[in-house]
Every structure is written in C-alpha cells, then in structure tokens.
C-alpha cells in the first residue's frame, strides 16, 4: 500500500502519545490473555485428552461419592478394555501448605500403562509397583519441592482419618497439557491402613473413580453405555464418561465465574476503544489543517477515513501483538502455575487465545479510529484551512 509510509509517519508523529496508547493496549491485552487463557487452557487440556481413549467411571452421584473397589476388576474384564485403575483422592496435607498438591491412590502396577503419555524410566515403574509405601510424583512437583527418588513424603490425612508416609520411587514427566504435579501411591496401602484404624469406614473399599483405558477409540461409546447399564440396578449406579468430559466437569464448576471473566475481558476491550479513540481524536485535532490540505489536494473522504483508521489500527495492533503474542511467549518461559500453589495445574496461552487477542486489538483499532476519522472527513476544507490563515 503506497500510503503506508505516510500512515506510519503519522503514527510516529507524536511518539509519546502512540507509545502511551500502545502501552495501554499492551497491559490491558496481557491481562485479557491471562483471563481468557485461564478459561481456554482447561478447554484445550480437555480436548488434548481425546487421543488417549480413556473413560472415567464415577458414582452416578458424582465424584465425591464412592465407587466399590470390585468395579475395578469387573470393568477390566469387559471386552475392549485394556486396563483399569482406581483413582482415589486422598487430599492429605503436606508440610502445612495451605494448598498442597493432589495425591491419588491408584493401581500401582497399572497406572503408567493407562497413562501411557507419561515418561517414566522402566526401572522406576518397577520400583514403584514393588514398594507398597512407594509413590510416583510429577517432574514439576519434584523440581519445585526439591524432591528426588528415595525422599520420603509425609502426608497428613484430612478426608481420611490417617496419615501416610510415602517414599518416592518414580518421577514421571509428560506433555505440557498434563498435570505434572500429582502424586500417585498404592491404593491397596491406603485401604489396608484405613481398615486398621476405621474398620467401619464408608471410605473402605472405595475406588474413588475408575480409570478405564480402552483398546481403541471405537469401543469408547459402547463401553460408556455398557458399563452404566451393567450397574444401573445395583446399589451404586455409575456414570461413565470420556476423560475429556470428566475434565470439563471441573471447568463447568467455575459456573458464573466464567461469564464474569468474559465480561471483564469485554469491559477491557470497551475501555480500550475509548482510550485509543481519545488518543486518535486528540491527534487529529492537532492535525486539522493537514487533513484540510489533503482534501484540497483531492484526497476523497473514503481515502481520508481509510488513512486514519489504518493509523489507529496500526497503533493498537502493535499493542495487541506485544500484549497477546508477548504474553504467550512470556508464559511459555515463566510457568505461572508454579505460583498458584496448585490451584492451576498448568497455565499457558494457547495460540487460539493469543490470536483472538490480536483480533481484538484490530477491532479496537478500527472502532477507535472510525469516529475521529468520520469527523475529520466531514470537516469542511474551507474551515480547516482558515484555522491557519
């Protein structure tokens, strides 16, 4: 576009003003990225689980209700099932941390065949399976708490009336979309200990939820129905869903917070339209004569409007790219989840969200430019020129 360099020069005419507008856009879009990613990360994590062909069986009353341990074996023998594991939330306190990492009682010999996206050295898998008091923890958990194989992890019971002291036998690593701050231990160990202290506990023989790995994707639909039909008339009916759907449950629990966060994002865009629009209006007021000269020279209204809107978009786009793409790379380097004490297992800005941010900055630029542009285009040439003479 042959006018581009003129537009760029105009945008740079008052560098302080453009920088302040860019700064404003950058800060606000960085925030918008954080808010929207908070929502979209969960979605993209849930989606990424699609490929693993796993189902989660929970009580029909929800995951806080027990599923009998017998189900683990029964489901494992069903056609199309590759393997099953318990997945029972222990919820113990670790070193008085207000928000400790999550601990799960699992079928220790199976868990890493079900979670085959995790990388664990084979000797560690074996060591974990063989040590009843052993546990396997995620790489990030190990790094942040400076834990290594052989260390002991004391857990103080909260939901359970007992304490566990576990020894780290394995450290798993995996893709960025998986929680690398979990702690797996032997479900058998938990159940035996519980039997000792509370032989009548309702938590006894509770599998938590059952993780089911299917042999292939096409079996998932049949199994989902099949498992629930099997138990619909039992004392403890089940609800089976894909791991993806189970994960979405946690996103859904945000409830109105989701809408609220989106509203804040919208309010930020709205605010930026006015902030950038004000800057553009001020810039044009100082340039009234020039616009009149352009029009005298034969620049039509449409062209004048185009020039101004493009200038406005250029400024906010720079802010948008810095804010959106910038925060994408920033959060790729700095792992925010580390500082949320486990509240967020992962945090990154997905590309789709970053691009949405860039798109928002384009929209902000357009809307902030359009009114000053129309005003400038409608100004009579004679009046505009008279301002100088």
């Amino acid at each position, binding site marked *: 576009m042959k006018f581009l360099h*003129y537009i760029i020069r105009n945008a740079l005419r008052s560098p302080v003003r453009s920088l302040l507008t860019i700064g404003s856009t950058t800060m606000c879009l960085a925030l918008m990225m954080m808010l929207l990613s908070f929502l979209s990360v969960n979605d993209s994590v849930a989606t990424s689980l699609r490929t693993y062909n796993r189902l989660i069986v929970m009580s029909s009353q929800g995951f806080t209700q027990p599923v009998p341990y017998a189900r683990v074996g029964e489901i494992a023998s069903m056609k199309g099932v590759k393997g099953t594991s318990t997945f029972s939330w222990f919820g113990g306190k670790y070193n008085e941390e207000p928000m400790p990492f999550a601990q799960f009682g699992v079928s220790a010999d199976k868990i890493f065949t079900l979670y085959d996206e995790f990388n664990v050295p084979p000797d560690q898998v074996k060591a974990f399976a063989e040590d009843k008091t052993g546990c396997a923890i995620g790489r990030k958990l190990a790094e942040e708490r400076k834990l290594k194989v052989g260390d002991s992890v004391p857990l103080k019971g909260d939901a359970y009336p007992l304490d566990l002291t576990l020894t780290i036998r394995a450290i798993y690593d995996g893709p960025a979309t998986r929680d690398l701050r979990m702690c797996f231990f032997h479900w058998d160990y938990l159940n035996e200990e519980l039997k000792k202290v509370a032989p009548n506990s309702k938590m006894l023989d509770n599998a938590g939820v059952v993780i089911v790995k299917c042999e292939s994707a096409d079996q998932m639909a049949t199994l989902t129905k099949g498992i629930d039909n099997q138990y619909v008339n039992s004392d403890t009916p089940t609800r089976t869903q894909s791991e993806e759907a189970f994960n979405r449950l946690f996103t859904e629990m945000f409830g109105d917070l989701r809408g609220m966060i989106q509203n804040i994002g919208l309010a930020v865009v709205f605010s930026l339209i006015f902030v950038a629009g004000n800057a553009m209006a001020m810039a044009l007021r100082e340039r009234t004569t*020039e616009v009149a000269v352009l029009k005298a020279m034969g620049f039509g*209204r449409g062209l004048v409007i185009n020039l101004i809107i493009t200038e406005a978009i250029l400024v906010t786009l720079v802010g948008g790219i810095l804010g959106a793409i910038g925060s994408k790379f920033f959060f790729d380097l700095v792992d925010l989840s580390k500082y949320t004490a486990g509240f967020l297992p992962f945090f990154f800005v997905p590309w789709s969200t970053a691009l949405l941010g860039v798109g928002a900055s384009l929209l902000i630029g357009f809307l902030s430019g359009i009114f000053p542009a129309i005003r400038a285009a409608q100004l009579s040439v004679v009046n505009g020129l008279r301002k100088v003479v």
Partner: protein
Amino acid sequence: MGKPHSIVLQNVNKEYRRDEFVIPVLSDLDLVVDEGEYLALMGPSGSGKTTLLNLIAGLDRATSGAVIVHGQDLGTMSEGQVTRWRADNVGFIFQLYNLIPVLTAFENVELPLLLTHLSKKHRRENVMTALRAVGLDGREDHYPRQLSGGQEQRVAIARAVVTDPYLLVADEPTGDLDRKSAEEILSLLQQLNTEFGKTIVMVTHDPQAAQRASRILHLDKGKLVRDEQQISFPVGVAS
C-alpha cells in the same frame, strides 16, 4: 475567437450564515478568465478575495450563480466529483506552505501523485522533475523543518504542479516570506505561467506581487471594483 475561457463566473453570490445573521461575502459577481491568464486578486481584509479563490478552486460552493472552470460547472458536481476534479485540475499554494512535517520534500511532492495510477518509478521521475523545476533538486530528503521558508514554499509549488494541473491557485504565497524569497517565488510562478501556460489565480496583499500578474482584480465588500489588464510584463526581471 480569442483564447478559450478558463474560468467563467456568472452572477455569483456567496453568503455565510452565522446564527440568524446572513453575511453576504460576494454579490452578483461576473468574471471571465482566459486560459493562460495570471490573475491577481487584491482587496482589503473581508473583501471576499479568498472566498472567490475557494469558489474557483472548487473548495467551496456558491450560494447562487454558476462557477465554470475548464468547461466544468462546479455547482452541478457532487462532493466526490469535485474532490476528484480538484485532484486532476488544481494545484494549491498556501501562505503557510502547509507541508506535511513528517514527510520529506520528496514525499510531500509525491503525495498528490499517490492519488494517480502512476507506478513508483514514474512517480519518482515526476517528483524529481518538479523539484528540479523549483530549483530544489538535491534537497529531496530534507524535512520541512530543515528548509527555509522560501524553500518550503518551493516544495509546496512543486507539490502543486507535480500532477500537471490545469489551474494553480495561490493564497498569499509570499505573505510569510522576506522580500528576496518572495521575489524568487513570484518569478517561479511567472515562469510557470509563461513557460508552461498554467492559468494562475493568486490572492495577495502585496502590490509588488500583484504587478507580476497579467491581470489584477480589485475587490471590495464582495464586489469587483477594478479590473486592470497589465499590458506587458517582463520575464525574469527579478533574479
């Protein structure tokens, strides 16, 4: 038959409304300007000379009467058509030059060419020709603030002629210049008139400037009070 008519004004009236007051600026004006004439408009402040210039240049519209320039009745054209017409036919020279401060001399002169379909190469040739014509070749990369007033006005003239317009309009082109620079600018305009045959309409306060024109119109209170044809005018007197 003499030269074709360049500008024809028939019974032109122009009035402004300010609140409930109607302020007449031009009344019952008739004027014929031939092609290749160099017209100076003189008169006291508020006599309507700039308004007349604006009407001829297609920047403003008459309240009544016809303004015909280069065979086009400007009153019958739409806003967009007049704008387009200006781009093709009129070059502007202002008292305060009105160059774009963020563009170099070259880019300022190039600006009106961006409205044409000329290629980058052709644009460059035209700009350099125009700058050479005003004696500023070698200064094309300077910004307005790096030039003297006289030089700035020459850039403005180069910008006005670069599209090879039919008509040049100048509003007090020497009003902000010292005598020497003013003389240079006036010679340049004269040269454009005589050598390139441009019709020029110039508003000026300066009798010396007006002397360079081929015809001087005196306005007072919106009426033509005197129309002087200069019999002859020396070429390149001042240098």
